[in-house]
């Protein structure tokens, strides 16, 4: 039970990351509402968080904060990926905010947020 559980835990985060990315793409491709599409893009980005955190995970590791842990006394998870994820979250917040503001302007100018009804740019 334990061994199987460990193996399953080993693959599971990666499978979740791949699933999230593909589901986000599916949502983007079939979206009928631009706000929903922006949300789907955030789902795609969530897959990068899951992947990076899974890569940095160490069995039995604790948070890499050394205020109450003596360095070397016990395993810690990889702090580099956590820094990457933090940066990634900042980027994601910027992109999402900009996209949502564009959606607001689209709603004002086109009177719709359905991408199927936006037909100004073709060919």
């Amino acid at each position, binding site marked *: 039970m334990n061994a199987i559980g460990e193996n399953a835990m080993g693959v599971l985060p990666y499978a979740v*990351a791949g699933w999230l*990315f593909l589901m986000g*793409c599916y949502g*983007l*491709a*079939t*979206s009928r509402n*631009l706000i929903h*599409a*922006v949300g789907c*893009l955030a789902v*795609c*980005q969530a*897959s*990068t968080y899951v*992947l*990076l955190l899974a*890569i940095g995970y160490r069995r039995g590791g604790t948070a890499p904060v050394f205020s109450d842990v003596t360095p070397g006394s016990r395993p810690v998870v990889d702090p*580099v*990926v956590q820094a*990457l994820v933090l*940066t*990634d979250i900042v*980027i994601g917040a*910027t*992109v999402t905010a*900009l*996209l949502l503001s*564009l*959606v607001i*302007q*689209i709603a004002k*100018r*086109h009177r719709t947020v359905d*991408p*199927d009804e*936006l*037909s*100004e*740019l*073709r*060919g």
Partner: protein
Amino acid sequence: MSVARLLPLIVAVPMFGAALLVGAGRRLPRHAAEVLGCVFSGGAAALALGALAATSGAAPRPAEWVGGWRPRHGAGVGIVLVGDPVGLGLAALVSVLVLASLAYAWRYFDEPPPRHAGSYPGLVLLFQAGMCGFALTGDLFNAFVFFELMGVVAYALTGYRVEEARPVQGALIFALVNSLGGYAALLGIGLLYARTGELGLAQIGARLDAHPGGPDPLLVAAFTLVAAGLLVKAAAVPFHFWLADAHAVAPTPVCMLLSGVMVELGLYGTARVYWTVFAGPGGIPGAAVHRALLVLGVLTALLGAVMCWLQRHLKRLLAYSTVAHTGVFLVGLATLGPRGTGGVVLYVLGHAGVKAALFACTGVLLDRYGSVDEHQLHGRARELPWVGGLFAVGGLALAGLPPFGTALGKAVVEEAAGGWATALCVAVSAATGGAVLRAAARVFLGLGARHPADAPAPGEEGGEETTGKDEEPETRGGLLSRIPDTMQVVPAVLLAGALAVGLLPGLRAAAGRAAAAFTDHRGYTASVLHGVPAPPAAGEPPDWSAAGILWGLLATALAVALALAAVRRPVPREAARWTVPLRRLHSGHAGDYVAWFLAGVTVLAALVL
């Protein structure tokens, strides 16, 4: 002060300028904000050119570990900026083009809202900082951050005129597709980190080389994801759909930057990552990468050329010509050798000047007549002989008229890639140059028949085509009655620059050296990690050849012939039937483009396997 210490300044100077303009923009009068923008972008240009001049012959590549976080025993988490000649050259090109774009926009843009005088030059400076950082960084995650920085600023600049319908739609499509590409690249970067525990380009390459052998699925997946993300920015087929939509709606000075250098940075990133990370014995076999880049390049070149010829919206026409030339660049990079790469370096330099000049001339039309439609403008611009002349010269240069830099780069790429590549290059040049010349003949000379204007044009009411009619001019006070001098001088200077690329022998030699250093996998690692000088580059520099000149003249003649033939024929009332499926592919629908992205990733993986 060593050259390496200059590298962070090339990124920091425009970024500081942007912060200053955003912070003080509320109190600054407009011309002060514009002067500040030019000062900071020009300062960065001077720094980049100075660093380039100081490193031209010297090895090793200057590398600056930011904050002094040097690697110990080949491992570390520090971030490095590397001033290798291609990266520095691109940073210099970016800065010079930004300066040209700011000069072009000088007092030309529609009056910004009160107390926002600093926002436009501030955004452009931030765009410059992102692009320079992307060109100089030697760290994969940092490359992603700069990639996103230049992306986000580019989306904002594309949708700068937020009160209009088209710009916000184009900006949204641009943002959705490019962000998705960025996240795919980040997934690939994560996989590389999982395999090697490193994020620096040189370190990842060194770790991979320690375990030579065939590529395993993880490595193939990592390469595919990173390359796909970068190729979205480079607008390679089938990731190219966003480009025409964004270029059609972005303000003209921004188009100059997007087409002139941002798209090329995507290609640079792809080639840089391949050469530094995957080109060693533990990476991806060269044959697989060659196949992938070649197939995408040929498809991109052909589709771009056909779509370019079919446009009547001048900005979309120029956008698709950028797609077509991207394809030729990819074919040149696919040779995976210093010679083809050197050709691409020269071609990119020449293309940047020519394409930016063509966009600048189109901007004059937009602001004078409120239209960028080839048929609606028929004969109306006869009163602008100077602009018309520049536009026509730009078309000839795009077609590869020697001695422009475009012709030189194309000739070198042709020689490096082989005989069939010559046919491809001639076809692409003739179609894209011919389309520009056709538009010039109609708009500036009034040649040929008018469009049957009584019937509704095929672009209206559910048609498959975007016309350029009834665009909002970007200038203050509506349509221009007199063309400002800056808007005419800037394209002339840019074209002169493209001519100089073909004429200066020193530049050819420098491009040859830069390409040799760029394609040197071991030299990069040794130089960045250990400070060891790379061996001097061997091989003769790219140069003009009789065959190259002849093919260039032939392509130019073909372009002129195509343009004249198109102008003489009556304008068909409806688009030819065979073009309809192609136009329908470019649907302006973000969901479709995402589906194409996934298909493209799959194709890329299949080609690399």
